[in-house]
């Protein structure tokens, strides 16, 4: 329980989040799964309690905490057993709004940050397309400069929070010789003419998270909505990926740990062949080995988050963690479903939902294979 990294404030934040998840999320989230989205009043309530401004400045209603604050948020939301809820919040706090917070001008931040922290302005980030995901330089959405601003054309795919977001941070090609300077980020508000939700996407897991295909048809975006310098999009995306990947690793390990807790409860009470499943060496050794691997990975998440908070370059470590945790959580879920026997195959039990939700951790935010290349480049 003691840690050299977390402070008393982190511990208090964790306590408040744990209570919020137990009282305000778990009893209702089955219904959100069926509806396909998290109600807005839940996000607003989280905003009131300061949970959406952990990393942001006090002037916006935030708490100015470090990277470990995001880890606490990701872990406690991960423990909810509803990955779709966790990702709805984390995309907003740690993956999308960071584009406004990090690259926004003082005017842009004054315009959007208070709403972002309050849960009034929900954000999404739109980089992935039908033809390009982790290969950000390969996107086809284009922005052409015209008097007063830019005209966006193209489409974006698998966009979390895409159906209901108020503000979408969109990556588009703005030209130029060097591919790494050819992408610019744009803040596109809901109801902007030429911007629409093309399709609401149906998914294996994360069912209470809304995911969309977004379509931009000669969508006019004024100059004051350009995030960061022209051609600075690729660099911004790569920098913000670090936070996103670390948060996913933290979320994944909290999910793995929770799945093991649920499974331990099950195997210690489930009887078969004259004893409990826990009496079977094959069962308990499998769970014991996984517990150790999860504890080790979680310890590395904490240590790397602490280093990141001190401003150290951790690209290799974060990429390694994303690869490690994204795969490990799936190994854990497979074993946990197995230990549940037939009941683990039923769609309405927590362990089944968690296993379905976990699959994307090896894909989203940078697939394992892409992550391992990032590590290899730095060895």
């Amino acid at each position: 329980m003691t840690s050299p990294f977390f402070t008393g404030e982190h511990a208090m934040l964790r306590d408040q989040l744990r209570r919020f998840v137990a009282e305000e999320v778990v009893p209702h989230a089955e219904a959100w799964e069926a509806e396909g989205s998290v109600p807005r009043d839940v996000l607003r309530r989280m905003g009131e309690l300061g949970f959406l401004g952990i990393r942001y400045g006090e002037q916006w209603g935030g708490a100015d905490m470090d990277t470990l604050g995001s880890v606490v948020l990701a872990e406690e939301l991960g423990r909810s057993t509803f990955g779709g809820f966790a990702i709805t919040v984390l995309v907003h706090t740690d993956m999308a709004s960071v584009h406004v917070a990090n690259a926004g001008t003082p005017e842009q931040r004054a315009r959007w940050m208070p709403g972002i922290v309050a849960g009034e302005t929900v954000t999404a980030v739109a980089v992935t397309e039908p033809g390009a995901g982790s290969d950000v330089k390969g996107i086809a959405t284009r922005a052409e400069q015209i008097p007063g601003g830019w005209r966006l054309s193209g489409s974006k795919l698998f966009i979390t929070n895409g159906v209901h977001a108020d503000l979408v941070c969109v990556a588009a090609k703005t030209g130029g010789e060097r591919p790494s300077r050819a992408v610019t980020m744009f803040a596109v508000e809901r109801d902007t003419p030429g911007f629409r939700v093309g399709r609401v996407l149906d998914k294996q897991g994360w069912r209470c998270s809304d995911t969309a295909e977004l379509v931009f048809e000669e969508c006019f975006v004024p100059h004051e909505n350009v995030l960061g310098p022209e051609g600075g999009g690729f660099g911004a995306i790569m920098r913000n990926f670090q936070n996103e990947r670390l948060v996913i690793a933290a979320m994944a390990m909290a999910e793995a740990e929770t799945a093991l807790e649920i499974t331990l409860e099950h195997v210690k009470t489930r009887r078969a062949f004259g004893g409990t499943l826990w009496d079977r060496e094959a069962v308990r050794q499998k769970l014991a080995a996984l517990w150790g691997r999860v504890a080790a990975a979680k310890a590395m998440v904490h240590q790397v988050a602490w280093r990141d908070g001190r401003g150290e370059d951790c690209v290799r470590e974060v990429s390694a963690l994303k690869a490690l945790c994204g795969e490990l959580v799936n190994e854990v879920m497979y074993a946990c479903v197995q230990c549940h026997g037939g009941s683990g195959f039923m769609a309405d039990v927590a362990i089944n939902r968690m296993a379905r939700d976990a699959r994307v951790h090896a894909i989203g935010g940078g697939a394992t294979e892409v992550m391992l290349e990032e590590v290899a480049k730095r060895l």
Partner: protein
Amino acid sequence: MKVLVPVKRVIDYNVKVRVKADSSGVDLANVKMSMNPFDEIAVEQAIRLKEAGQADEIVIVSIGVEKAQETIRTALAMGADRGILVKAVDNVETDVEPLAVAKILAKIVEEEGPGLVLCGKQAIDNDMNATGQMLAALLGWAQGTFASKLAIEGDHASVTREVDGGLQTIKVKMPAVVTVDLRLNEPRYASLPNIMKAKKKPLDVKTPEDYGVDVSPRLTVVSVKEPPARKAGVKVADVAELVDKLKNEAGVI
């Protein structure tokens, strides 16, 4: 009016308590500790009194290990004004007994001069249910225990108490000690901005010697045992069989 709220750091109510192998007590190593839930209700009530303009300062006191500071900070994050930690023991396994706690609190009351002491009715770790009553006796103050409603009316407090079979409302003269029950209120969340602000609120650290109180234990724990495991039940086919079993096997009807 100043309100004093004593809070205790106890094993978290969600933790599955394990008895130590030598039966000397429960295992407190590496388990989550939190504010006693009844004390949280007392803190909430004090904040509500302040919000209603009936209290102007809320002082939190905790007596125990150094880490009880965290419990005080939680109360400060909820909205209390300042804290006093009385570092009475080094080891979390050593419980400070109600009489010693009440004696220290009585001294703090003399120094601070609150108009009201709000306590949890009992701590969920040892269920003594004694500190508030002892404190009232030591101070010679009125007491209202197990409050499920509290109203301050001038120099009196109206306390609704949960008693067997119903509710009893009493009027106590202020200053008073009121111990609170579960249904008095639902404690608020500490918002993150308030958690950050709590860091800067004053917190004094004292020792029992500062108050001239001896905290050495007067009770000896003989042995601590887990409740017996529940035996497996039986399924009955119908009501007739149930009635038959209750009559002839259990002999209860």
